[in-house]
């Protein structure tokens, strides 16, 4: 799996993503500068977490117009695998590659903690190796992860199986208490209609080794490897 990790001014999780894929999974990685105009020769593009362009105006609003984003949109529309994590999720929404928006956390606090996620959908490229209902333990780290979309958009996401992850209790129950940021319907991650583009607030790259407190995040990257193998067959 040839992975490209986009680096904007203010991105901070690029090296953590590279560590998960290069050091842990032993798959090749290259960094993509935000000024580049192509993402050729890649299987997976990751938009990592951080505070691109200082999060000025709105999270992801400026990054969405970086030269590289046109190439990322073409790549996504051709079926290339794209994973937006945290700030990357915000950028994908600003770019209209995923629906909805991420508002300030309901608590108005930055939340940095481990959460439980229920896998709602194993058809996306990043959850192929999971079973629906499986509970993953992965950390969050954000101030603006409060998922919002209008009711009809939410209903369409549910109907089309595009809700990929929901915040839940350790036993998988989706409760108000387990929602760290006020996201509507506890939504933590969604996919586009084809399942090749996924955005999520939690950081799977920070849960890729027992030393870090858990390795459930590897399931997502392994799923991507298997999704690519299926396409190749």
């Amino acid at each position, binding site marked *: 799996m040839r992975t490209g990790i986009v680096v904007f001014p203010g991105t901070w999780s690029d090296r953590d993503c590279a560590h998960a894929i290069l050091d842990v999974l032993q798959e090749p990685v290259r960094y993509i500068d935000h000024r580049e105009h192509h993402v050729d020769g890649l299987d997976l593009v990751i938009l990592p977490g951080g505070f691109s362009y200082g999060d000025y*105006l709105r999270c992801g609003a400026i990054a969405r117009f970086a030269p590289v984003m046109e190439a990322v949109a073409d790549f996504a529309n051709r079926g290339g695998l794209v994973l937006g994590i945290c700030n990357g999720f915000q950028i994908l929404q600003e770019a209209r590659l995923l629906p909805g928006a991420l*508002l300030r956390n309901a608590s108005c606090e930055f939340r940095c903690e481990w959460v439980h996620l229920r896998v709602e959908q194993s058809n996306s490229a990043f959850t192929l190796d999971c079973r629906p209902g499986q509970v993953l333990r992965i950390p969050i780290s954000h101030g603006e992860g409060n998922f*919002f979309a209008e009711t009809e958009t939410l209903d369409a996401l549910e109907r089309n199986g595009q809700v990929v992850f929901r915040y839940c209790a350790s036993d998988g129950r989706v409760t108000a208490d387990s929602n760290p940021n006020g996201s509507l319907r506890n939504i933590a991650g969604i996919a586009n209609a084809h399942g090749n583009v996924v955005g999520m607030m939690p950081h799977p790259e920070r849960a890729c080794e027992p030393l870090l407190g858990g390795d459930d995040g590897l399931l997502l990257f392994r799923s991507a490897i298997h999704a690519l193998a299926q396409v190749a067959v």
Partner: protein
Amino acid sequence: MRYRAEVFVTLKPVVNDPAGLTIRGGLRALGFDSVSEVRSGKYLVLTLDEPDATQARARVDQMARQLLANSVIEDYRIELEPVGEPVAAGERSA
């Protein structure tokens, strides 16, 4: 002509505003009990040169739609006023 455009970006009525709720809480804590709602937003001031007010407004509207506001969650309002022509250095009166 030089124009000064004020752009007011606000969350749509259906969108929750945690910052506004927190500010309301602060006001109530100070004894301002009559406040029933606070909505927070962004205020941007742009200076731009365009041939006339119609074109200036159209241009700012385009900016708001493309970048300044996110139509998924925000509304915007534009106020425009001409700014006096910059006086050339030689014409400046003593």
